[in-house]
């Protein structure tokens, strides 16, 4: 009997064997993929900005000359050389790539080109709390609310409130987000002036850790959050409803009903637990998308955040800022997918024994 055979024999070593096997065939390769994905992603993130037609040095010179400073061509060439040096764009692509990774391990994304020499990290640090605060809350709230409503709506499709929600969601979902956001702004900041027209905080005030500051923050965040939640809730609502509707007709649900289990138990433990599976993956991905920021939300409501930072970075050819934000985004998304994938067997026992 071979060594391998010894290990596959059932017996007192089963539990350890299972864990080891899980480790070898599932966990380790998964971690390997995790790191590989990050490397590939970061490489893509390095390459793409350089494919843009925007040359950061040219854009900077264009910026300088258009705001009054006069550059004769001798001076301009001098400036180009200086900037190349300062931006770290001298040397071949390989050299730049390697120095990028070296910096990355130190946790330094380098200086932003457009706002030289402010380090990319501090730019991100300034805008991140606003984006995180707004998008984390709205994603979670709309996910929870949407899934609950969707589950109930899918299970009881004949109820009137479910039908009404369905109609509302059908109308709101296809609305271009810009129009939805603008309508909210017009309604609640202009025609019925309850909320401020924009900004993250009171003008002239300082943010402190007291109730007043929190209330002011909430007041300014209300409309942008509302616009995002409206869209998000109905998205999850529709998706969940569809899933629940198909799960509802599974045999095990019919058995549960025949077995006399209470409605709420069926919905909670049988229907929802099964319907949740694709939704959880979706949540992980949504959370990861936070880093792209809610660009249009920020534009319409003048709300601070990463979205406009990123957008401006594209158009000024700010490689370091682009790479910084996108790398962070990659880390977060891959990590959350990894976590989900590793926890998946816990949720779905059928997958466990592969």
């Amino acid at each position, binding site marked *: 009997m071979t060594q391998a055979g010894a290990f596959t024999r059932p017996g007192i070593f089963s539990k350890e064997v299972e864990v080891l096997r899980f480790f070898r065939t599932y966990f380790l390769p998964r971690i390997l993929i995790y790191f590989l994905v990050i490397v590939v992603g970061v490489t893509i993130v390095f390459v793409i900005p350089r494919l843009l037609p925007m040359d950061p040095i040219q854009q900077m010179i264009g910026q300088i000359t258009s705001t009054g400073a006069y550059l004769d061509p001798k001076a301009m060439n001098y400036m180009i050389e200086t900037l190349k040096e300062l931006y770290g764009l001298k040397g071949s692509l390989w050299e730049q790539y390697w120095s990028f990774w070296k910096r990355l391990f130190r946790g330094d994304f380098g200086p932003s080109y457009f706002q030289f020499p402010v380090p990319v990290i501090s730019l991100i640090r300034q805008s991140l709390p606003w984006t995180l605060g707004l998008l984390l809350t709205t994603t979670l709230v709309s996910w929870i609310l949407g899934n609950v409503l969707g589950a109930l709506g899918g299970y009881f499709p004949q109820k009137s409130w479910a039908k009404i929600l369905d109609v509302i969601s059908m*109308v709101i979902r296809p609305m271009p*987000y810009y129009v939805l956001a603008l309508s909210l702004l017009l309604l609640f900041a202009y025609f019925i002036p309850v909320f401020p027209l924009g900004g993250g905080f009171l003008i002239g005030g300082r943010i402190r850790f007291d109730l007043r500051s929190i209330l002011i923050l909430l007041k300014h965040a209300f409309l942008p959050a509302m616009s995002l939640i409206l869209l998000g809730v109905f998205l999850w609502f529709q998706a969940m409803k569809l899933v629940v509707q198909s799960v509802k007709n599974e045999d095990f649900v019919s058995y549960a009903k025949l077995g006399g289990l209470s409605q709420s138990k069926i919905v909670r433990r049988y229907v929802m637990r099964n319907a949740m599976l694709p939704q959880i993956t979706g949540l992980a991905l949504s959370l990861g998308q936070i880093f792209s920021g809610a660009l249009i939300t920020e534009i319409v409501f003048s709300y601070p955040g990463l979205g406009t930072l990123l957008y401006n970075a594209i158009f000024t050819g700010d490689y370091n800022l682009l790479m910084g934000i996108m790398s962070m985004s990659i880390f977060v998304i891959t990590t959350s997918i990894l976590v989900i994938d590793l926890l998946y067997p816990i949720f779905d026992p059928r997958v466990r024994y592969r």
Partner: protein
Amino acid sequence: MKTLRDLLRDGRFKFAFAVCLILLILSVMSFFSPYDPYRWNVVPRDLSPQWPHLFGTTSTGQDIFWLLTFAVRNSLTMSLIASMVSRVIAIIIGLTAGHKGGKVDKTLMFISDSFLIIPLLLIIIMFAVMVRGRMNLAGLGLLLGMFGWAWDARVIRSQVLSLRERDFIYTAVLSGSSTLSIVFKEYMPFLIPLVFATLIGNMSWAIGMEIVLAILGVLNLETPLIGTMLYWAINYQSILLGYWWWILTPVMTSVFLFIALYLMSVSISEYLDPRMRIQRVGRA
């Protein structure tokens, strides 16, 4: 034909079918438009809806009704291309990964993850900028299609993973059915509702992306699309200046378009799913 009549019994399908028919007629009418949608100042500006300008005119001197026919035609074409391309990719990848498992699964998920981890909107903006606004409709459809499949591939894969453990799959595999027939006969009936759900999602995503790209100004703004109509209406302050006909036209069109697509897909998938059909019979 019998299928169609069967489907038409469902009130929701009737409504959706009617709307889609209207939109299709509009698209065809674009070939008979008396105005070139690329020319400005061909009609008096800022007229409210009146004969002969059924939906009024814009501040750029264009007739909204005829502009709409082109916009509908182009947006529909574009989103169809985008969602078909991405459906095909998503199904192929999701199915193969879920069913085969092992190395194939890992490689495919690896590729799919690589597409997911990059902030999508920005990458699309960057690609659009790279092609320097010379993109035509097919190009835009292709671009969106190439980026719109990753999430759905994963969803399909997880569904396939759960299905794969079922007895009927084992039965099919053990009885020697080829992979292809397993795919079509066993998996598809379960996947089709999912695919349809993701198809509307994807079509509306494509049109939504088109609108976002148009509003950000990254598309060729002279091409009549629903998104570019919106863009011009917003930028010329139609809301605040009271030119409601200009902004409402693209908004209402996209609302109706989406509602129609959704209702249609829901009723079709219910029709196709044998167990849902029984429910329908009971109801009808």
